[in-house]
């Protein structure tokens, strides 16, 4: 059981972290620094993360409601409302991995002055799992059998079966604690009717909502009952939403109207130009987010009927190792990074690029090799037999690729570049872009969703929460392929299917021990990339910007970006 301690050297890290926050010498009275202005170009709609699941809502709510433990900027779990993170070593996690015991720190109160108790934690579980509630975070509690509250400070979570990673419930910004007194009449079907509660949850966090205009602006003031003396430094927050990433970047870096701008997905030269404004700086952090091209393992021929298109295997040519290898070799990833992401991107060869323990190092992909790609295709029998510049399969089908993605300036640049390279090695590429709200919407009636995959290849980015990729790797399982039978729901977008993969993943779910788990995870990662499931392109970071006058910002991609907003202060 050594794995747990090495997975998260949590307690120590947490102590080190807290002291370092104090050590930068900025202390004083609560609310001494006036107002801080934050801009998110996607506006928060609701402050109850259980009812939305949207990043914008989870992050804005994280300033108000908090989980028991959080991930820090390195991806380590740190205690937040508890004394320490339970492990097998300290006895917090039972030896058979079926229960975990959290001890809430004495003296923590809600912003209304009442104490935070284990009842609130238990209530949160009941709230989210209540039928008809439509809780977005219900998977966090999927493994939970029951929750016991022996006393006001102790929470015991019992799992249905041994759970190698027991840190799902009540950790991270997606799973904060709600106050029982406030939400007890809002269970299940009544959840949406509690507008007042959903717009101004009572929390333990550093700020309290004073007014909430949905999809527009939130104003907050410092929580007078916050547990740390002298924090937060800011007396009030204006949290503006709307517009686009460029407007947010301008407001932080060029005009200085705002102090923090979230997720500035802009081309690096645009960011650099804004940075010249001199009022703020961009900061980047790397999580497991990967921009990738998914390869369709089924046949998307429009001539096929609705029950067969993108359902029946195989694809006319994409399943051939020579083809998908050649497609990957033709891509110049360092150039893609330079054009599209700058310092917010790295060359990506893996599906799981982070955390470090799980990132495979077996593949290299940073050199473009057009000649090699051509040779590979030539040798495999894909030749241009009719001289039109497009290769044909041995059966005589021209190798045409329909390449779709969502609308986004950087993605369209990528499409143009990759189209160019693929056409050089003898494919014919047709591009399509779709509005994100259609592409990522799961409407089974729409032909344009990414799940339906009515194209040969498609590009998007995906990531996972927390630090354990087990369920993310589950997206490569045969039975998770979307099809008409499942209303086109399912996460195995490329319809990758390999019995060995399924078997190995089953092994992962039963394996404990970080080293062993990491080893299997890396194998799974290599398997899917090397067998034509996808072509990873760029390991993407999150790029945000903060004003030069704001101190204490630590960009965190493993949790809410605003996780340590209590430590922010105004530089004098």
């Amino acid at each position, binding site marked *: 059981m050594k794995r747990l301690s090495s997975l998260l050297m949590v307690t120590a890290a947490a102590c080190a972290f807290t002291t370092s926050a104090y050590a930068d010498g900025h202390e004083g009275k609560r609310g001494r620094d006036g107002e801080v202005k934050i801009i998110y170009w996607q506006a928060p709609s609701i402050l109850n993360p259980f009812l939305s*699941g949207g990043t914008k809502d989870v992050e804005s709510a994280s300033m108000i409601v908090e989980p028991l433990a959080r991930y820090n900027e390195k991806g380590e779990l740190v205690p937040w409302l508890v004394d320490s993170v339970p492990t097998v070593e300290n006895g917090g996690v039972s030896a058979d991995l079926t229960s975990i015991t959290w001890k809430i720190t004495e003296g923590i109160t809600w912003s209304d002055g009442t104490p935070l108790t284990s009842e609130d934690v238990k209530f949160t579980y009941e709230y989210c799992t209540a039928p008809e509630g439509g809780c977005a975070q219900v998977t966090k509690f999927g493994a939970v059998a029951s929750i016991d509250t022996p006393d006001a400070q102790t929470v015991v979570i019992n799992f249905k079966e041994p759970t190698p990673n027991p840190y799902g419930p009540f950790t991270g910004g997606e799973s904060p604690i709600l106050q029982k007194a406030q939400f007890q009449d809002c269970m299940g079907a009544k959840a949406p009717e509690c507008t007042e509660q959903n717009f101004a949850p009572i929390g333990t966090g550093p700020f309290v909502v004073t007014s909430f205009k949905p999809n527009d602006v939130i104003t907050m003031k410092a929580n007078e009952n916050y547990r740390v003396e002298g924090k937060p430094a800011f007396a009030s927050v204006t949290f503006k939403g709307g*517009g686009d990433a460029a*407007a947010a970047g301008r*407001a932080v870096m060029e005009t200085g109207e705002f102090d923090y701008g979230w997720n500035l997905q802009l081309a690096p030269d645009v960011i650099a130009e804004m940075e010249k404004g001199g009022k703020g700086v961009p900061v980047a952090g790397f999580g497991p987010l990967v921009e990738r091209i998914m390869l369709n393992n089924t046949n998307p021929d429009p001539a096929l009927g609705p029950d067969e298109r993108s359902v029946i295997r195989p694809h006319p040519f994409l399943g051939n190792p020579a083809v998908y290898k050649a497609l990957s070799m033709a891509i110049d990833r360092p150039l893609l990074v330079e054009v599209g992401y700058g310092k917010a991107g790295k060359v990506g060869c893996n599906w799981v690029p982070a955390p470090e323990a799980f990132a495979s190092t077996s593949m290299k992909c940073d050199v473009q090799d057009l000649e090699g790609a051509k040779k590979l295709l030539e040798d495999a029998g894909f030749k241009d037999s009719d001289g039109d510049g497009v290769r044909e399969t041995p059966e005589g089908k021209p190798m045409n690729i329909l390449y779709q993605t969502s609308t986004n300036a950087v993605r369209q640049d990528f499409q143009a570049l990759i189209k160019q390279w693929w056409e050089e090695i003898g494919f014919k590429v047709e591009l399509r872009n779709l509005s994100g709200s*259609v592409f990522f*919407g799961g*409407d089974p009636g729409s032909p344009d969703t990414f799940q339906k995959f009515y194209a040969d290849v498609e590009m998007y980015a995906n990531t996972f*929460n927390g630090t354990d990729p087990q369920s993310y790797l589950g997206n490569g399982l045969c039975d998770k392929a979307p099809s008409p039978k499942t209303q086109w729901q399912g996460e195995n977008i490329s319809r990758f299917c390999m019995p060995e993969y399924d078997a190995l993943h089953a092994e992962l779910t039963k394996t404990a021990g970080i080293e062993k788990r990491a080893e299997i995870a890396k194998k799974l990662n290599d398997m899917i990339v090397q067998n034509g499931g996808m072509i990873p392109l760029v390991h993407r970071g999150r790029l945000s910007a903060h004003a030069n006058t704001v101190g204490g910002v630590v960009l965190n991609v493993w949790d809410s970006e605003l996780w340590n907003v209590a430590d922010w202060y105004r530089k004098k």
Partner: protein
Amino acid sequence: MLNYLIRRLATSVPTLLFIGLIVFLLLELAPGDPMAQVPLTVPPEVKQQMREALGLGEPVHIRFWKWLVQFFWIEPLNLVDYVFGTTFAEGQLRVISWQTRSPVMEIVLQRMPQTLWVVGVAYLVGIIIAMPIGIYSAYRQYSMFDNVGTFVTMVGFSVPPFFSGVLVIVIFAVNLGWFPSIYDTTLVVDDWDSLKAQINQMFLPVMVLALQITSQLSRFVRASVLDNLNQDFVRTARSKGLSENVVLLVHVLRNSMIPVVTVIALGIPAIFGGAIITEQVFQVNGIGQLLISAIEANDLPMVQTLTFIFAVLIVLFNLIADMLYGVLDPRIRYD
């Protein structure tokens, strides 16, 4: 006239219901998913449960009926409750937005001030500038003034706000620093200073919008006045010895107003509809932004309600325009 008015009002009820139904069916048919913005890390089963919690599992006609009841019965009851402090609507489910899980009408009311401030003022400014420009350009057709006016208005109209908005931000907010680039909807105007701040932050969006409105309207005014300048009645008026001002501003203008009234009547519902792109660029977050974000998030109750209110205004103002035609030109009869 009164007869006609009553008949029109009576027919507008089925018309509006029909429009409501068509919009509802259109939204039903349109591909889209209220869960589109939920991150990919949330599994599909959970998304399905969330959809069902929104009531998406029910058949179409039941949902349309529910919306009708909520919009035409429960919402007015809530208004009554609000005004008279009664509790008729207590416990009744109002029209609820899927994004925010709160009553749609409350958000609409919240958005009205900034929409009226920015889009409404821009419309007023546009009309005030466009009328004299249009009249004078027509009166002195092909003069220097007319040519410059034509050039400016045409360029003004062909430059889309996604460009002109950012352009004025770069010039006036970033380089000169005179105006803010982001509209503050929390500002409460209660004294001179806050009024100044309000004017300051409205300036750029109003400028961008007013340019578009002026361009469009002044062209119609000019064309219409030109049409009338050579009519016989103008010659008659002149030969009677009326002053040029009276001829132009009374005789010609009155007869030229029909297309202008039409354009303005089509524009007033548009004020309520907001200005989608300009609101986005300056983050005014008015009704336009509300509508577009609701469409993107596939928040059907919100889109349906907004579109319906919009339809009511269109029907109403087109009726007003028709009435005004009769006032402007008594020869027009509907009976």
